[in-house]
């Protein structure tokens, strides 16, 4: 990722950074010490990325950086200069839920919903890499996300449902493409 503004000269002054968040180019000023999660929430007004621990253990702050999940409390905003990010606000659009979100609704995969955005983004990465994960693979991938409410049963079910629906959609699209070619 190229960083148009990041300064090679040391400075503790706030600096201008630029990134693409949920497909929209944004530019703002951040102190070096501002974490990415505080920047997203405070400066960009994207409150769906939640803060559960600020020390990297709970997973609530998980976002996608260049398509990969990262913990936004374990990055500085200046490190993301030039990057492409996706937050929960970028998953569904205008009230239309992403199939993963819909699966969590349908399977009661949440209670308080505080951990949920982080889970959803990790599930997104998981299913991109592995469209048909086993329960063990799901557990392995989500082991770094804490949920205090659900006891995880319905989360597991939600992931299975989302995976199935996404596979079915993909198969249907492929069949359609074949039929029309």
């Amino acid at each position, binding site marked *: 990722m190229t960083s148009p503004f990041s300064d*090679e000269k*040391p400075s503790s002054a706030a600096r201008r950074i630029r990134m693409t968040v949920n497909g929209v180019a944004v530019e703002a000023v951040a102190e070096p010490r501002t974490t990415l999660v*505080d920047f997203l929430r405070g400066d960009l007004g994207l409150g769906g990325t939640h803060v559960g621990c600020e*020390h990297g253990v709970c997973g609530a702050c998980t976002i996608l950086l260049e398509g990969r999940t990262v*913990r936004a409390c374990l*990055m*500085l905003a*200046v490190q993301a200069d030039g990057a492409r990010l996706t937050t929960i606000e970028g998953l569904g659009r205008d009230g239309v839920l992403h199939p993963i979100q819909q699966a969590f609704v349908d399977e009661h995969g949440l209670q308080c919903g505080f951990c949920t955005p982080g889970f959803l983004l990790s599930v997104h990465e998981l299913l991109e890499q592995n469209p048909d994960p086993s329960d063990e693979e799901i557990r392995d*991938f989500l082991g*770094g996300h804490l949920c205090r409410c659900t006891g995880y049963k319905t989360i597991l079910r939600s992931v299975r449902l989302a995976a199935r629906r996404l596979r079915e959609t993909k198969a249907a699209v492929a069949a359609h493409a074949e039929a029309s070619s």
Partner: protein
Amino acid sequence: MKPPPFAYAAPRSVADATALLRASDGDAKLLAGGQSLLPLLAMRLARPSLLVDLGRIADLDYVREDDGMIAIGAMTTKTAVERSALIRTRQPLLHDATRLIGHPQIRNRGTVGGSMAQADPAAEYPAVAVALGATLRLAGERGERSVDAAAFFPSPFTTALEPSEILTEIRVPMRAAGSGWSVLEIARRHGDFALAGAVVMLGIESGRIASARIVLFGVAPVPVRVSAGEAALLGESPGRPAFEHAAACARDAVSEPLSDPHASAAYRCHLAGVLVGRGLAEAAARAEGSS
């Protein structure tokens, strides 16, 4: 929990980075993946005057075969290691160890160099580096130098790095034919730092143990080689009696075991013995399977 103020720079080359370190008053810190450093900053346990971000240096992120060794750039993420076909096929111990580190979201950011430089007593990589006889390449004001892993971890959370040096590359040998490996650990939860862990490598020739390496992590301030156990295995036929003896050596190998609310010193030493016993069995099975 907000970090204290600090200055920040994102140099584009190793030379620029070492120059920044040299020019600073000595409490500058390098920033790699931040998976260890950011929590320390948030808790204000680390208070650098300057953070030098290695993330913009283009040529520290690679895994390649070089001169019969596997060369890994310091800024290579654990996810990249995990996905490297070269590592999976030619040094599967490193692949397996990587999967024990934290969680995918941590591995997506955390780097190989960061884990070595952090030198956490419970971390997998330092023990793996010691077991494999890895070489670490450092860049500093006097140019480059290489340090054996065995000499890189003098005490917990400290390394052989000079204040203005940067770890640039880790070089590990490929797995020898006919050798088996194992890395096992016990943690309170999946993905947690280990209460105890053991890295084991065994070479078996004509039904006899021809080479052995046993390194413990999580039990002592630094990775511990179980030399007595290794020596005792040589020439033995792989099997329970030999492994149990080596496991007993592992239990006794640790002079200053760690102790915390999760595990006492005695428990950690006991676990080290259990893991070495299990690890040897696993390594032997793999060695036999591969030859």
